[in-house]
């Protein structure tokens, strides 16, 4: 029996008007992502990779087509509603880490919990569990500018995991790291995938993309293989 996908994109088109010119960023893109998948989306700059990532991450809505998340079509949800869905279903890991510099490691990890329905008394416990998972339990009270690049990205991973989302969406997660630290982070993603987490890795780097179970190459707004 086939497992129901967590996320299905069906015939997604996305176009922009820039200076009176219509740009088709995505053309009829469809993809199914199943629980426990580790996939990568690879493409050059301008390929439509970022647009696709924004639609998967519910930061943007398609011009046409359906985005089905856990059986529900979320493509027409209003902004307030999408924010709630992002909070519970999507964990973002960014190239530039995007940590709050004035906040501690623990506070950074707790940030998504602020916008969730999790009772406040559970915040710290949940955040601590995630920090243990990324081996940062010793640095909970450090500010992000007191951490190394690799440590920062691990904080970001813990933050992405804290609401137990359906999908971890990593956008060039090693782009700001040296190769050694980068491979440690990739190892962390592989570990998390083994624990059952669904991971989507978005990158321009063909070699990096190969660590995923499935590789989708995007070019001119379409999957090429």
């Amino acid at each position, binding site marked *: 029996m086939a497992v129901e996908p967590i996320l299905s994109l069906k015939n997604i088109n996305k176009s922009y008007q820039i200076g009176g010119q219509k740009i088709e960023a995505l053309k009829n893109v469809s993809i199914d992502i199943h629980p426990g998948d580790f996939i990568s989306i690879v493409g050059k700059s301008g390929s439509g990779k970022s647009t696709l990532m*924004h639609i998967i*991450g519910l*930061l*943007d809505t398609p011009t046409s087509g359906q985005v089905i998340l856990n059986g529900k079509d979320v493509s027409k949800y209003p*902004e*307030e509603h999408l*924010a*709630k869905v*992002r*909070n*519970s279903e999507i964990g*973002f890991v*960014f190239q*530039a880490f*995007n940590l*709050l510099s*004035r*906040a501690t490691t623990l506070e950074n990890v707790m*940030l*998504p919990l*602020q*916008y*969730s329905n999790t009772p406040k008394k559970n915040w710290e416990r949940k955040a601590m569990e995630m920090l243990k998972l990324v081996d940062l339990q010793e640095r909970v009270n450090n500010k992000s500018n007191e951490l190394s690049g690799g440590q920062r990205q691990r904080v970001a991973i813990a*933050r992405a995991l804290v*609401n137990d989302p359906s999908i971890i969406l990593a956008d060039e997660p090693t782009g700001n790291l040296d190769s050694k630290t980068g491979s440690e982070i990739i190892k962390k993603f592989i570990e998390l995938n083994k624990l059952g987490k669904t991971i989507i890795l978005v990158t321009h780097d063909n070699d990096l993309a190969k660590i995923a179970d499935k590789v989708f190459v995007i070019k001119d707004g379409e999957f090429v293989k």
Partner: protein
Amino acid sequence: MIYELYLSAIRSLLSNKTRTFLTMLGIIIGVFAVITLIGVGEGIQNYVTKQFSSLGSNLLFVSPGKRNLRGDPGANFSSNKLDDKHVKLIETYSSDFVTGITPYIEIGKTLSYKNKNYYTVVNAFDEDGFSTYNLTLDSGRFFTRADITSNSRVVVLGSNILNELFSNQDPVGKNIKIGDKTFLIIGVAAEKGGSIDNRAYIPYTTAKSIFNIKNYSSIVMKALDSENVDSAMKRIEIALYRDLDKDEFTVLSQKDLLNSFSSILSTVTLGIGAIAAISLLVGGIGIMNIMLVTVTERTREIGLRKAVGATPNNIAIQFLIEATALSVLGGSIGIGLGILVAFLIRTYANFDATVPLWSVLLAFLFSACVGILFGTYPALKAAKKDPIEALRYE
């Protein structure tokens, strides 16, 4: 969540202390000015009320001209017709309502003793004037009917003049010059507090004859019964209509004077309030300006918060709290400084400046409103940011 947002607001304000302080300065100065000026205003009100009540509440005055306390005070004297005839009229027709009817002359003169000079107000009245003004003696005597009838050159000094001219030595029996005329000091009045202690008192007959004064500055008397002040005033008016037109005199009670003073003071207070409101407005614009800068600086943070689940409302509230924290903190500092200055004035200037609770609450409320009013636009701007653009922002 509000608590987290509040914490994050405080943290963000603390992370840039100089900027936070400079932004708050407008509000601090505005609120400080309001609190201090209200405190001083209350002090003046208390002082004046005390001065008036020390004279007794049933004091009545007949002034020349149509009294208009907001008009040109000089206008009242150009048509001054008050003289002995009117004192007699009041005595004849109002004596069952008033007592201690005394003509009253007020002149500015320089008092000199040996090589010391002191410019002050010299009051001239008859022997009843002392009781009308509730004055008592420290030493010597008041002038008597005999002094009045004989135009004696005698003077009773207010207690402050002792300090100024006699180094606190008892001056009774010594001669003093008022203008260029020599007077014998016969008494010193007991201290009453306030400007009344600066005055010198001479018989009105003497004032008329040697300073060549024709008319009285006013006629002062006391209502027999403080309940019947209004009837007494009516009676005096009727008596004076026998000789004067209604434009040529005014009967005033202590209460009238106090009321007109209060209305002047509230006009001044209103003016000060308007200036303070402008300064708060300027402070508010400062807050809006800095909040707009903050929103731009923290674009990436806004993008991140939206990505991890913040709704536009969550973002708007966060920045609104920050703006309000700025204005309320500034307002509180202003209130604190205002209370401190009122306290210093009370302690060192011997002037009863008190900050009423309502002014503190009003200032607090007002500064919170400034924060909300001027924080709304930047907060909405933050809430509307597109998360994708915001995350890309360098």
